[in-house]
């Protein structure tokens, strides 16, 4: 059959690759650096163009990964060393301590309820708080608590320990240590995903100065029923219900000045999706998308945008806003734009601005590339063996890439690539096995 395959990254691409391999009888080690698999897709409200509930279509696959006899999930883990070649990679994985015994924790959440320490919740994009001991999100896989030692009173000051007092399962284990494990695998699939561009450097848009100028990922949490406002568009500054929303496209992309020159591929679609979400919640809301071009090439995408306009009444104005201002009294935002189709230079007052930010490479790619001996392009994305004919292989035989780790792309593409890399990895396992 062949040795196990290593999949680095537990987002939708990593999950798909792992399932494909496991279903054909290969063992898989799925290494994920955060406390749960799921990745960015778990944070989204809905997916385009189908408007499926994102976590609803992802969670079954996450659970399948967890239950599959051929898949071993390693969370809070990262790859620290690789040697060898195809058929015979020796991999070192460092597992950070969860401080909770996975075999005992029932995922009941009482520890989190009673924990006194509040910290910004990164999974909710900083829009709300979590506790030092927490379960990453309600559908987390594994559904096991985890202690953020940097913010835990016990680990920082030697006091508290409330969680261990209230845990009925006796699962808290402060003595847990980091572990290094050795894996012997036939091939490696890199599926580490992306990160969102930080638009703070675009001072003209006021991000990080004006609370109600938010990024797309922040918006996804705001509009999601499992988000901090239960899916109501209460804007961050004063909780006012946002009836008038502006989307600004190409934030951090298509720019030779600040940001990146490339197109982020998915923003036109996700802006439309998010605009439709607002309209679904409140048909009378005033939603405008300020765009440069509408890059909607995929299956059903153009129709999706057409419907957004004709059926939902989402407004599209061609013009990249020059400035966003905030009214110091009402906190309302004014978007300065030119409708380049008509030549009208105007302003639009809104309650909330969503900056459609670029997908950029994760900084961890650098370390991982060094460990794997792979090349990164000038923007930190993994390089394929050939961008046209071998887009998911790398110049290291036995190491494959899929999903956003090698550039911006949407979920369907990432999933298709994941299956592609699984096929490549399966072939490698077969060729070098037995």
């Amino acid at each position, binding site marked *: 059959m062949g040795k196990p395959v290593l999949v680095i990254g537990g987002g939708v691409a990593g999950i798909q690759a792992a399932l494909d391999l496991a279903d054909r009888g290969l063992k898989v080690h799925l290494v994920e650096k955060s406390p749960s698999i799921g990745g960015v897709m778990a944070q989204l409200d809905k997916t385009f163009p189908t408007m499926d509930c994102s976590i609803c279509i992802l969670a079954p696959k996450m659970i399948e990964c967890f239950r599959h006899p051929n898949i071993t999930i390693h969370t809070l883990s990262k790859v620290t060393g690789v040697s060898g070649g195809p058929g015979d990679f020796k991999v070192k994985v460092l597992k950070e301590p969860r401080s909770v015994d996975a075999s005992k924790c029932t995922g009941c959440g009482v520890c989190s309820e009673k924990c006194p320490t509040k910290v910004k919740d990164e999974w909710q994009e900083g829009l709300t708080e979590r506790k030092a001991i927490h379960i990453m999100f309600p559908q987390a896989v594994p559904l096991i608590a985890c202690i953020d030692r940097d913010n835990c009173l016990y680990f920082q000051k030697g006091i508290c320990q409330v969680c261990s007092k209230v845990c009925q399962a006796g699962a808290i284990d402060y003595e847990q240590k980091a572990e290094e494990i050795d894996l012997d695998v036939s091939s490696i699939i890199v599926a580490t995903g992306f990160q969102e561009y930080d638009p703070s450097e675009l*001072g003209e848009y006021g991000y990080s100065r004006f609370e109600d100028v938010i990024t797309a990922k922040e918006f996804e949490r705001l509009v999601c029923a499992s988000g901090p406002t239960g899916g109501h568009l209460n804007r961050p500054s004063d909780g006012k219900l946002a009836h008038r929303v502006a989307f600004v496209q190409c934030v951090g992309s298509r720019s030779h000045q600040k940001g990146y020159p490339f197109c982020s591929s998915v923003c036109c679609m996700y802006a439309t999706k998010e605009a439709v979400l607002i309209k679904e919640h409140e048909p009378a809301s005033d939603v405008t998308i300020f765009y440069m071009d509408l890059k909607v090439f995929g299956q059903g995408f153009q129709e999706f945008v057409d419907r957004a306009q004709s059926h939902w009444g989402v407004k599209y104005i061609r013009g990249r806003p020059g400035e966003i201002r905030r009214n110091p009294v009402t906190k309302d935002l004014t978007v300065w734009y030119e409708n380049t189709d008509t030549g009208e230079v105007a302003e639009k007052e809104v309650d909330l601005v969503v900056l459609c930010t670029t997908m950029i490479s994760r900084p961890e790619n650098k370390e991982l590339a060094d460990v794997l001996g792979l090349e990164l392009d000038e923007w930190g994305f993994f390089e394929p063996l050939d961008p046209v004919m071998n887009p998911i292989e790398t110049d290291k035989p036995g190491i494959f890439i899929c999903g956003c780790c090698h550039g911006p792309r949407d979920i369907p593409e990432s999933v298709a690539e994941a299956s592609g890399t699984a096929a490549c990895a399966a072939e490698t396992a077969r060729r070098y096995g037995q």
Partner: protein
Amino acid sequence: MKYALYLGCTVQSDQYGFEASVRETLPKLGVELVDMDDVSCCGFPALSSVSVTGWHYLSARNLAIAEKMGLDVLPLCNGCHLSFIETIHALEADPGLKEIVNRNLEKEGLHYEGTAKVVHLIEVLHDVVGVEGISEKVKTRLEGVKLAAHPGCHAIRPSDLQKVDDAENPQKLDTLIKALGAETFDYPEKIDCCGSQLAVSSGRSTLKIAGEKLQAVQSYGFDGLVTTCPFCFKMYDGRQRAIKGAIGDRSLEVPVFYYTQILGLALGSSPEKLGLQMNQSPVDGVVNKILGDDE
């Protein structure tokens, strides 16, 4: 701290109230100012629109004079400041231009090498003297006075050449205002242009652009506007009456100050030494309020 003081046409011709306040206050903060001989207009915007080479020549010769004096140069006008910075950049980027400039400078007994640096008044006060350096010398705190900061376009843009302050969210002039005990806060129009460069071609539009900003400043409850540029000041202060007429707002009343004027009041200088008698806008109310607190 010693700088060659470059006045520029506008300051020395009619905005010498600003000059007086600078000469009065900077030495009190330990900054020595040395007058420059042989200088000329910096060329912006007078020559830049018709002869870029002529413009750079004029700026370069003033920089060459500072070089000869062995000092960095402090221009009192935002426009002159930007002009010098652009010229330094242009001459560095184009050796051919530098050669032509030097060939001609030679006839005037000058030479440009690019060793003299240019500083802005905001930089000198905020970065060199520092907020503590100022506040420890304050004798009269400007309690209860709310002033709007207007650094001016040519102090903060373009950010690839100028490092005076953040181009989209400048805060240094605000900090300097607070160092005097006065209050200030962000307002949306802070980085908007005074429009004065438009005056040469479209007088009415200039007044309307300037008027919108003044109206905004007044609407936020500020007691006055503070700037460091004579062009901006001339527009907001000297032409406030014309602005009122152009925008049809009889209630427009915004006291306008140079920063060094309120700095001077805080340091204990008398209004006459700060050229305050030259401000055309209704400053007396604010000045009296400030001086009224002086025991």
